């Protein structure tokens, strides 16, 4: 942010975050080659995120209960490749925003505000609920858009393609229902 008075719309249009999606996709593809060969650990997010959830649950449920849980026993929290990849992903977003000059606090995005108004509480409540459902779904499916969609998809894994074939239509139906025109 270089100017004292900050104009969101102008900052957005001035932002250099306009790389063509094909270049981005190819970049993620090439990154996949690299991680398969160099660390033998493909791109994925939610397995590591469930490790973090175990760490968050520990003060509430107690260390014994978390240790006794079969799922967390398989995915125990530690600073390993997966959890540090999460740190990197967050940092990469920060770096890109910083370099593009788009780093700013966003509480209510435009498309949401146009349909549901400027209420921060309303947006936070739905984001929180959406986060719960998305993560539970990703764990049940054993992967999210990254682990199942991209990493599974590129390996021609049946699991990945079933995930994509179900996730997109359900998401489309949800979006059209959520953003249907308001009845008068």
């Amino acid at each position, binding site marked *: 942010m270089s100017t004292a008075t900050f104009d969101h719309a102008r900052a957005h249009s001035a932002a250099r975050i306009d790389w063509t999606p094909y270049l981005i996709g190819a970049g993620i593809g090439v990154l996949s080659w690299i991680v398969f060969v160099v660390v033998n650990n493909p791109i994925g997010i939610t397995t590591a995120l469930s490790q973090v959830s175990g760490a968050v649950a520990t003060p509430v449920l107690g260390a014994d209960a978390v240790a006794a849980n079969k799922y967390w026993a398989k995915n125990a929290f530690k600073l390993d490749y997966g959890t540090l990849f999460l740190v990197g992903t967050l940092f*990469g977003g920060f770096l*890109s925003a910083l370099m593009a000059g788009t780093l700013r606090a*966003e509480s209510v995005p435009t498309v949401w505000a146009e349909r549901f108004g400027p209420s921060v509480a309303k947006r936070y409540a739905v984001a929180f609920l959406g986060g719960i459902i998305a993560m539970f779904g990703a764990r049940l499916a054993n992967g999210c858009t990254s682990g199942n969609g991209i990493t599974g998809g590129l390996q021609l894994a049946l699991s990945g393609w079933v995930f994509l074939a179900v996730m997109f239509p359900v998401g489309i139906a949800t979006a059209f229902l959520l953003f249907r025109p308001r009845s008068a």
Partner: protein
Amino acid sequence: MFPVTGTAALVLAVVFGAAFGFLLHRGRVADYNTIVRQFLFQDFTVLKIMLTAIIVGGVGVFALVQAGHAQFHIKPADLLAITLGAALFGVGMVLYGYCPGTALAAIGGGSLHALVGALGMLLGGILYALSFDWVSANILPVGAMGKVQLTQVFGLGAPAIFIALIAIALGFFAILEMTARRRA
């Protein structure tokens, strides 16, 4: 030499994660608006990135596996779990406006509602861990096909499947770009 392990791999986790987060942010998918508008058919950035990543990544990874430089990491096709999980994920992703990977990059870019939703994801991870015994007894075994690839499902070679995918993607991209140009 490869795969890299130990401390070096932990450093690389941050580096590769940062590259992933940077690409997601530069590709405008660490943006609620881009993701929701994909599901509303108003913006096809998400599909362009995912399809390109799958094709570029897949052709390279299959070649690397063939040459003995990499190995597959196929997730088991537990069909009931993936179908239910992907359906939940589709609903959650639209409510949240992010998937787990893009959410982290968005938090780095300053999205506060992505951060709130990430807390929801941690709660979702806890709820999944707590229901894991029931899920693994009743859901995971239903339609468990094992670590299957589309090559086995269709009885086709990987090159044939990738050629078909490339043809579909090129046709789809051509239509998208032509309609975008006509509208502009």
